[in-house]
């Protein structure tokens, strides 16, 4: 039955054009995801890299991360809408809050798990602290950092559907409207688009890791 719904949804030509067409909605969804991921990475990466490099603030980080995870995303969205009215900002805040903890915590852990002896060797041969961070620790920590970014990205992709609740676009539109109109074909079609997008995100991160991670790290990890 579900397959029928999926089939019906995607074979309807009306779903492929216009402001409510699949390309438009996918574009909006990807836009929200990229923006939220960029904001979360802009917060999580530097903090995680620095705390991990200096080995301080691990406890504070896990506290923030737990608190962040405990916040209900939907509740936060409603709260933000009540406070700020409708708009992109109050969608971004809950998505960023959702995505920062996995990025922050894995980046910190990735940096802490780097073997200390190359770091000692690098420092002993006169490498600057920035050099050690970017040229010794980061390349080795990269696979784990990417996995943190990946889980954050997947969470954002699946959660960005909430934008539709506050009158914005994205693939959530189909789900919210479909439920309202009792059009289950639309609901399931929208949900499968989200699932495909999540898989595409996985594939993208796999490809990035292939290119960005040194073969010496990939093989020995």
């Amino acid at each position, binding site marked *: 039955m579900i397959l029928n719904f999926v089939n019906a949804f995607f074979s309807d030509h009306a779903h492929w054009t216009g402001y409510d067409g699949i390309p438009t909605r996918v574009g909006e969804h990807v836009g929200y995801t990229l923006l939220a991921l960029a904001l979360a990475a802009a917060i999580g990466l530097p903090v995680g890299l620095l705390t991990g490099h200096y080995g301080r603030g691990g406890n504070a980080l896990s506290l923030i991360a737990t608190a962040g995870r405990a916040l209900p995303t939907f509740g936060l969205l409603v709260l933000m809408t009540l406070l700020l009215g409708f708009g992109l900002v109050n969608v971004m805040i809950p998505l960023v809050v959702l995505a920062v903890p996995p990025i922050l915590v894995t980046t910190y852990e990735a940096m802490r798990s780097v073997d200390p002896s*190359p770091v*000692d*060797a*690098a420092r002993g*041969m*006169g*490498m600057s602290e920035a050099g050690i961070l970017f040229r010794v620790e980061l390349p080795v920590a990269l696979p784990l950092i990417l996995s943190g970014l990946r889980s954050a990205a997947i969470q954002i992709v699946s959660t960005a559907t909430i934008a539709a609740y506050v009158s914005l676009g994205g693939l959530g539109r189909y789900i919210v409207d479909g439920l309202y109109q009792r059009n289950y074909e639309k609901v399931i079609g929208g949900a499968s688009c989200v699932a495909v997008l999540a898989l595409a995100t996985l594939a993208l991160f796999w490809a990035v890791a292939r290119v960005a991670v040194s073969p010496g790290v990939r093989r020995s990890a």
Partner: protein
Amino acid sequence: MFGALIRIDSVTKRYPDGTVAVDRLSLEIPDRSITVLVGPSGCGKTTTLRMINRMVEPSEGTILIDGKDITQQPVNTLRRSMGYVIQNAGLFQHRTIVDNIATVPRMLGWGKEKARERARELMGRVGLDASLAKRYPYQLSGGQQQRVGVARALAADPPVLLMDEPFSAVDPIVRKGLQDELLRIQDELGKTIVFVTHDIDEAVKLGTMVAVMRTGGKLAQFAPPAELLSDPADAFVEDFLGADRGIRRLSFFPSSGLELLTSPIVAVDSTAEQIAARATEDVPYLLVTDLEGRPLGWGEPDELTAGEIAPERLLPYGRPFTAGSGTLRAALDCAVLSPTGWAVAVDGDGRATGVVSQQTIAEAIRGAHAEGRTDAKAAR
């Protein structure tokens, strides 16, 4: 660049919790030689080493290199002028072997190609095959990784090399190879090497000077290895040197003074008359050699003259020592291992050049000891 002289002047390292790692240590580390810091764990040897490149800052005292206080220049400039080798090599796993070795030249602003060319040259110097250049560290054995570590430290041709237990994590056979290689490289390059180890045998083998440190960061004795073995400063040093230091000290005496007998050597094709002529009252056995002069084994003169010599019935001759370059220790070891009590001396090609009895070696040892004592007195 040749090595520099390092002077450690009453240096103390005290940690905030009150622990004293190094206690008013003064050492004059001679240039162009290997100085070994040795001692039990917690004696401050690694801390001392790490104060030389300011990985640890002393609480009191000064360290001078060629008369210049090491705090007078930026810390990274200082470190780039010293090679640093650590226990597990500490290679960068995301970089290939050449790029690992080229690290310091690249930091000093060399072009990529020039740095890589230098790295390849060093691979040859430390005995690494050129085919390993593009490999990653995980593809190398522990011994090879450590060679890369040494090459990386030498890349910018620093006058000083700091080595912190560099060979402790590899197995004994590989370790011996690395030690021999280090001595060979040092012969060519003449760096000032400060070498930390907890292994007294390694210290005695590598050190031109050996500083024995005791728990609490105090210097127990600073002396050349032969003097350390003959005249330990106190019970602690004596205890740390361990058993058989008398035997080990023989490594510092050449076997060249031994009087070798050539008369008890016969070739395998000798006739009964020739053998009978060689047999004397003093020498109960004759050493049989093949036609090229390589030893085959010992035989009793009576048996040898009885008919054709059968090499498989000869007594084994143990492990021969090399006449000239071998030490008294090797000669004694050889005599002890040989069932006849006679040591066989060979030349560089393995041809027997003579035999020597345990008695003769014992006399040589007594002579060497007497001489050693006069030398030690003269040195003081």
